[in-house]
């Protein structure tokens, strides 16, 4: 009978669950978060188990991470909890053991994580003061532009003359975007400016811990190709974009920790 391990990651906008067997992903699930992190954990894990035709008893060890990780453990849904910083680092390492730096851009915060050759956390820096450089920034900007969030990256890539945004603050940048629209600047060029603004903010974080390639990008914002391209330009390095959903890397890391904690590595 296969030994399975699970990771549950509750973010500010989405919740993810991953089940692994011998380090390989057996299944994953992403849902929009519910008001309570424990409910989100129950729901996302329940959906994943149901889809994979598994039951809770088949999971040998579970690690929770993200918001409410302690409560999830206290409710018996996980055996242990780890910070999402360690989990994103470990998840990226398990995806590609060469990775030394991870850029994780989530809905509410952005993190740059440095790991060693064993995937252990060496250093990290976290933007935790405001929405600048996060998914929230992109959400506000896409609303201001009247463009679907998922289209923002695509139209940015079509820009011929990006408009640089001088402000990193979400509120001031929104005003700047409105002003550009009133001046008749094409949306493509404004969107490219937005990608550039977020990239500058993230690049500054990367420089604080030091650029050490290979660098992998994770989190929901990683799905925006224009942001990825702008970060590469700012840092002058290529960034690894995983061929699995970048949003599940944290849960994948949690599952990998579960496997390690259970002494099965």
């Amino acid at each position, binding site marked *: 009978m296969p030994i399975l391990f699970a990771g549950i990651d509750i973010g500010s906008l989405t919740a993810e669950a991953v089940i692994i067997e011998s380090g390989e992903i057996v299944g994953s699930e992403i849902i929009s978060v519910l008001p309570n992190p424990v409910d989100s954990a129950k729901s996302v894990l329940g959906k994943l188990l149901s889809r994979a035709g598994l039951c809770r008893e088949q999971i040998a060890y579970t690690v929770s991470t993200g*918001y409410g990780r302690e409560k999830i453990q206290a409710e018996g849904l996980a055996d242990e909890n*780890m*910070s*999402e*910083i*360690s989990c994103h680092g470990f998840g990226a390492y398990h995806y590609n053991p060469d990775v030394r730096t991870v850029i994780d851009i989530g809905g509410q*915060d952005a993190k740059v994580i440095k790991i060693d050759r064993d995937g*252990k*956390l*060496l*250093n*990290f820096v*976290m933007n*935790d*003061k405001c929405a600048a450089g996060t998914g929230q920034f992109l959400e506000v900007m896409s609303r201001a532009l009247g463009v679907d969030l998922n289209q923002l990256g695509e139209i940015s890539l079509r820009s011929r003359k990006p408009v640089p945004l001088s402000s990193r603050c979400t509120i001031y940048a929104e005003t700047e975007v409105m002003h550009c629209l009133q001046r008749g600047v094409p949306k493509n060029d404004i969107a490219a400016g937005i990608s550039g603004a977020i990239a500058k903010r993230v690049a500054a974080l990367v420089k604080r811990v030091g650029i050490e390639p290979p660098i992998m990008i994770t989190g929901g914002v990683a799905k925006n190709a224009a942001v990825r391209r702008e970060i590469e330009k700012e840092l002058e390095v290529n960034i690894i974009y995983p061929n699995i959903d970048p949003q599940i890397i944290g849960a994948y890391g949690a599952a990998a920790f579960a496997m390690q904690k259970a002494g099965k590595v």
Partner: protein
Amino acid sequence: MELISSQAPGLENDHVIRWKQSGRSIVGYTCVATPTEIIEAGGLLPYRIRALGNGNTEIADAHLSRFNCSFCRSCLQLGLDGSYDFLDGIIETNGCDHLRGMIENWVYQRRPRFFHYLKVPHLGDSASIEYFVEEIKIYKKAIEEFVGRSISDQQIWEQIGRQDRISDKIRTIYRIREGEKPSITGAETLALFLLATAMPANDAENTLQRAIDDCKDRALDGYKARLLLGGSATDEVDFVAMIERLGGLVVTDTLCYGARAFRPRLLEGKRTDPYLTLANGYLENLLCPRMIDGFRSRLSFLLDAIERAAVDGVVLVHNKFCDLHGIDNVQLRLALERESIPVLQIEKEYGARADIGRLKTRIQAFLERIG
């Protein structure tokens, strides 16, 4: 530790109540550079003003802006809402502009019976010492006028000797917590010191001795890492307890309400007059970023503590808009990183629990890194 849990909570503790019931007066002070020996020599109770993690600044916000340190706003709130009405007087120092804004608004609104502004130099050179000697004399005169009697040199020497004994006991507690097998937590130590600076010196001596005795039969275990906590005015016992619940035992500190608040013995180097002794003792040991040209001393103080306590990592914390510690902590962080000492720098709002999730994430990740 039962001693702490039974006495620590609240601003107006049993010692304060008894002191007031006996008809004696209490003088509040905020800055560690205030020679409390003079207050004690005048027969008054010195009380170190604290906010105990109070997050409500509703009244204070009308007087101090959002760009003022939230610790100062929290203290002002307690001053204005009447929580500190047991204070008969207040000593102001020029610790920083936020602190001054807090005290001056407080005094203007509440009009305590006694107020004195003690100017503490920003340098520790001979001219500054000379100036501080004169300032301490003026401060003593102000206390004399308030209590209606003169204070003799002998009385000041006695208080210097008593503070020496208190400092000795605090040093013993630091030796216990910094040792290989600590038997007192960082949260307990902070609560103990808060208690000891809100009671008469005699009681403080006894309380500290009892704490030392209580440590003898205790052992702490289950911690992932040994930490040093450094930074600005942090009297938030809950914040330290939160770090320790996550697995990081705070075995030493460089806090204004901790290690920076006690000084070496002054009586042994007895000089010609007590004012010079106090001026030297307080200025030479003032390891606060308000002091100009003092960074090397502060870094050396930090590195010594790191080595002495064999810490695994350092957490540097400062309150938002605290310019002094905000700048100092960046310099300290860079210096520690150059020495390959793991360090986590945190900027936070005093007393606020709104951002606790992110704080916990960063501290937990740091402990996972070093643990």
